[in-house]
């Protein structure tokens, strides 16, 4: 089963601290949503409010069109998969997975069969008679998933479920989670602070910071067209170049920066229309720098820069550059494996105009 989730103006305060600040979010049935942000950004608070473990100070929650704001966790069509797995240590895996069905009054034979089916789904049918302490971390994770899915929730809430696994296992579990979500069709709401994990599994990512939603969108959207400086910086390495809007016309805008003046399409302004005199920040990902003079029409040059350091990363060289126009700026650019670069060398920085995103500079009080 699956259901849509709607959060309207949810606020949660703990004493003086505002954990969640007027958050509204609509999740479609069957979507895989990832709440992404640093610790303390409110993502876990939002998940707890969806699960019913916390009541919002203000605002409303509805699941599948039904009002859920003050409904107990047991009576919600949600189940939660906890960060520390929270398996019942004294029960066999089969009884762990069948626990929710037992609470719903299902007879032993029927629930054992269903529990075995869900253990099969996560590849642990053969271990049904084992107890949790006999399993590895990744296996416990799968049992927790099977247990949460066994009661046919409309919405599955996942609280940093992969945080305790090592990198390789985490990548593998991400693929499995995504495949299982496709099979069962349940709405998944997944919390993480790992942006790579978010991009790997999400249909849509919700970037959160200081109790607010900074950005919502498909992984590629959030990465390529971030709508806030925080979102741009959190999703991966990015160069921020300060500038000022000099002139605006119906299709483009002229921006003055220390690296020169450039003309960018209106579509580069993802957070709202520019106006003349506006203080803005250009966001350029390191991999978007191109070699100047390759003959491609829409390249924008950013002047010459001096190489101050480089390191080989396998897929690319990661280079530090000091632009001539602004010696106090440090630019990070990725160069192809084939590039022969050496320290002290001067290169001309260039970038596709379509890859540049321009956002309003942070005001002092934000």
């Amino acid at each position, binding site marked *: 089963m699956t259901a849509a989730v709607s959060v309207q103006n949810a606020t949660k305060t703990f004493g003086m601290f505002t954990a969640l600040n007027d958050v509204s979010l609509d999740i479609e049935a069957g979507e895989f949503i990832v709440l992404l942000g640093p610790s303390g950004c409110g993502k876990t608070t939002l998940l707890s409010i969806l699960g019913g473990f916390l009541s919002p100070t203000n605002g409303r929650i509805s699941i599948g069109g039904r009002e859920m704001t003050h409904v107990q966790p*047991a009576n919600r069509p949600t*189940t939660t998969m*906890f960060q520390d797995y*929270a398996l*019942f*240590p004294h029960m066999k895996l089969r009884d762990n997975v069948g*626990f929710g069905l037992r*609470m719903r009054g299902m007879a032993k034979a029927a629930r054992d069969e269903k529990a075995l089916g869900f253990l099969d789904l996560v590849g642990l049918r053969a271990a049904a008679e084992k107890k949790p*302490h006999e399993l590895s971390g990744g296996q416990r994770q799968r049992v927790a998933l099977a247990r949460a899915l066994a009661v046919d929730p409309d919405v599955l809430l996942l609280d940093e479920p992969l945080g305790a696994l090592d990198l390789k296992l985490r990548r593998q579990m991400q693929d499995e989670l995504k495949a299982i979500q496709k099979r069962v069709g349940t709405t998944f709401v997944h919390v993480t602070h790992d942006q790579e994990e978010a991009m790997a599994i999400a249909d849509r990512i919700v970037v959160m910071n200081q109790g607010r939603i900074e950005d919502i969108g498909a992984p590629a959207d959030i990465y390529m067209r971030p709508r806030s400086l925080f979102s741009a910086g959190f999703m991966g390495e990015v160069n921020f170049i300060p500038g000022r809007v000099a002139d605006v016309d119906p299709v483009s805008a002229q921006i003055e920066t220390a690296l020169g003046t450039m003309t960018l399409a209106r579509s580069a302004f993802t957070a709202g229309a520019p106006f003349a005199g506006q203080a803005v920040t250009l966001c350029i990902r390191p991999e978007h720098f191109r070699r100047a003079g390759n003959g491609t029409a829409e390249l924008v040059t950013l002047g010459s820069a001096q190489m101050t350091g480089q390191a080989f990363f396998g897929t690319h060289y990661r280079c530090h550059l000091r632009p001539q126009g602004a010696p106090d700026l440090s630019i990070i650019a990725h160069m192809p494996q084939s590039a022969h670069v050496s320290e002290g060398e001067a290169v001309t920085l260039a970038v596709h105009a379509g890859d540049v995103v321009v956002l309003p500079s942070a005001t002092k009080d934000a």
Partner: protein
Amino acid sequence: MLRNVLISTASWVYATLIFGFIFLPVAVLVLFSFQDGRLPVPPFNGFSTQWYTAVFADRKLMAALLNSFVVALFSSLIACLLGFLAAYALARHKLPGSALQRGLLIAPMTVSYLIIALGLLTVLNAFGIPLSLSTVGIGHVVINLPLCFAIIYSSMGDHHVNIERAARDLGASDIKVMVLVTAPMLMPSILAAFFLSVTFSWDEFIIAFLLSRFDVTLPVEIWSLLRSGLNPKTNAIGSLVFQVSVAVLMLLEFTLFRKTGKS
């Protein structure tokens, strides 16, 4: 080399002294329960099981043994149940003055058994409740409840909170969470509390003496035996009790603690 030998010899001597200090009285007790003669004092006259025969033939002693068993069992069950409920409430819920309540629950540990017994005697008299094995049991619940509470409370870690939360999330009511999840998870410490409190109740004399009348527990019966002078019969009953305790301990070691030791 010499130094190592010295150190190892010294540690063996030390270990022998320690274990001798602990177990010599027990060994002497058991040895003289087999005394062929009227006095359980050296010299050892020869091997005889006559005092064991006498113990099994002594109806009062056998009745006292049964009484002790019943009192220990029921008072420990009640102390564990109350201790568990109190620990659950204080560990899982925000209660007014929880530090004070914890203190009050543990406080009877610091009060002498004599004071507790005298206090209970006064209260029981005031309410006109006649002394019986039940009143001894009440006394033993009073002294064992703090112990059970302290042991169980200390094992209720925060890592159990999410497990209980998961149970509730899967549809379990509060009572089902307690019965199906919390209590089984804490079973090792609940059993530890139970057996410790059985031991204390089994051994306890002052409260059992002051709060009983016609039916008495084993320590009280042994005490009245001792009033008529030293007798190998007391050694025999003492050895029996000791052997039963050892047997129970072994049984626990090989069944219960072996299993839970791993997790």
